[in-house]
């Protein structure tokens, strides 16, 4: 079964073709980073405008490049959670294409896409596993028995980890998207100079909170700021390193706890922050000690992409699930409400 996947939930237009027999045949991504960096964050109306401009040419490109123009058996598109205007573009184009092609279509949960992205790699993890979904919009620990069988173990009570990264980066006047830029700056920093808190790690439970860490960062930046409004370059790097270390440690502690609590031995990490090298490194170290393994997707499939949507949609279409022609996007959509495959 050959599936066209479309992702437009935020600021990346992603298109891919996945074949259940042959694997991923092709994928393309158009990122709007340049467009939004002037504003220091995603402007929803501009994101929607760019999706409607870029999506169809990208689809044409991928279909031509994979020789799939007359060979698509189903269409998968992100139908939530995300920015409503952005979601609508991908859902409307995707659902209408399927109607014209007379093939089934399915709306995919964006975070299920992320969660299943490591399965696109060679040597994919077997079910069951614990998933850490960590991005600009989500920080969740989920016990995964199978596709669509999700038990929420814990989640952020306030900011998502990626959101905290972006906000801390903004305090250091780094460009949008701040997360990767902050991680880059942290490489130059002395991780021992500042000691940031590891929120909610000293008590039981698997929930997260990152807003206090954000305030702590703000205060540290203010304390060391020069006349320019920023600390000197080395201090900025040291703050970045301390901040990243605090977030990474917090995530690692909770992941280890989640594995111990569930008795599972496999962890997958997915979402934009799962591309963070320090997180990958420290998780590998920590999990080796408890005879557990960590899995993740290649860098380009950690952030938003069409491949994960094509893959997740394909799994559901293969068992006969599909949507009717009523296009219904869901800006909020709890992962636990999905049906099992």
């Amino acid at each position, binding site marked *: 079964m050959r599936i066209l996947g479309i992702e437009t939930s935020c600021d990346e237009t992603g298109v891919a073709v996945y074949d259940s027999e042959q694997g991923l045949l092709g994928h393309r991504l158009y990122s709007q980073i*340049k467009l939004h*960096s*002037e*504003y*220091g*964050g995603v*402007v929803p*109306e*501009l994101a*929607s*405008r760019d999706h*409607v*401009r870029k*999506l*169809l*040419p990208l*689809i*044409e490109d991928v279909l031509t490049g994979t020789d799939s123009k007359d060979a698509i058996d189903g269409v998968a598109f992100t139908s939530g959670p995300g920015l*409503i*205007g952005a979601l*609508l*573009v991908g*859902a*409307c*184009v*995707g*659902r*209408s*294409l*399927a*109607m*014209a*092609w007379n093939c089934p279509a399915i709306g995919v949960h964006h975070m299920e896409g992320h969660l299943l992205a490591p399965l696109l790699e060679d040597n994919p993890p077997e079910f069951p596993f614990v998933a850490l979904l960590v991005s600009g919009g989500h920080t969740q620990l989920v016990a995964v028995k199978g596709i669509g069988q999700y038990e929420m173990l814990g989640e952020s009570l306030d900011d998502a980890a990626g959101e905290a990264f972006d906000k801390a980066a*903004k305090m250091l*006047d780094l*460009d*949008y998207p701040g997360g990767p830029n902050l991680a880059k700056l942290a490489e130059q920093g002395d991780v021992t100079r500042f000691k940031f808190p590891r929120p909610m790690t000293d008590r039981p439970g698997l929930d997260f909170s990152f807003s206090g860490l954000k305030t702590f960062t703000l205060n540290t930046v203010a304390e060391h700021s020069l006349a*320019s*409004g*920023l600390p000197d370059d080395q201090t900025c790097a040291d703050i970045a390193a301390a901040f990243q270390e605090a977030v990474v440690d917090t995530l690692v502690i909770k992941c280890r706890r989640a594995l111990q609590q569930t008795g599972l031995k496999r962890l997958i990490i997915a979402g934009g922050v799962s591309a963070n090298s320090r997180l990958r490194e420290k998780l590998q170290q920590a999990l080796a000690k408890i005879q557990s393994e960590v899995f993740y997707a290649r860098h380009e499939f950690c952030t938003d992409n069409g491949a994960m949507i094509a893959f997740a949609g394909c799994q559901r279409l293969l068992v006969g699930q599909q949507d009717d*022609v*009523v*296009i*219904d*996007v869901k800006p909020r959509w709890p992962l636990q409400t999905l049906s099992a495959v």
Partner: protein
Amino acid sequence: MSLPESYLALDASTEKCSVTLVVEGRFHSRECNIPRSHAKVMLPLIQELLNEHGMTLRELSKIVVSRGPGSFTGIRICLSIAQGLAYGSGLPIVSVDSLAALAKYASIAATPHPGLHSILSSSPSRLLIIPALDARMNEIYWSANILENNLIKHISEPTLSSPVDFVAEVSAIISQQAANTPFVGVGHGWEVVTDQIDIIQTKCSAATAFDASILPHAEGAARLVLDEKFGEVSEDGVIEPLYIRNEVAWEKRKRIRPAPQTAPQKDS
């Protein structure tokens, strides 16, 4: 004589969403007036019409869309659906502006609207039609059109104005070229200036009528393409929405460090 074509027209530029299927020169329409439901209802309405007339998308010759101005989200829903259907069926897309679609629709659908009906049934040789849509933020999208021999002719392109400028410009158009021409104002943009309609009426010596309840309709778009030969044809499905409002004041970030070269320099 070639066979009359069959085609589909879509409009979702306001809170009304409408679909028209043209088969053998006849216009069949479906509409829905529930705001924020366009994405949900549009494909079912299209499917209903196609089924009812035993047609498939591939039997059509094109898809006509209103590309704006109007609701940003509505315009994108309409274009995205048209793109998916057209690309998947190998059809060209023909786009018209929603204000022209509104003017055309007013000229053919006046029967339930007494004021308009009495002017149109007198078959004036010329009629000035000003479609206007409420653009929110105290502004109005509008254009000026003349109906002559049942054909719409633009005398001003779609634009965005404050209520004060709108009333002044419409008054000027009437004084300069249409003082003896009957005049109709349609669309909910006129609700924004209800208290100033008498200013416009005094400029016009012929009959006038206003109806804010008439909104853009796919049938107007469908007829514009047939009668007036309006519309831009896109074979590859790429169409630029007509937002008009492009200079929205999204606040740009303030920088401390110099901006990278890809973005414009901002002060500290």
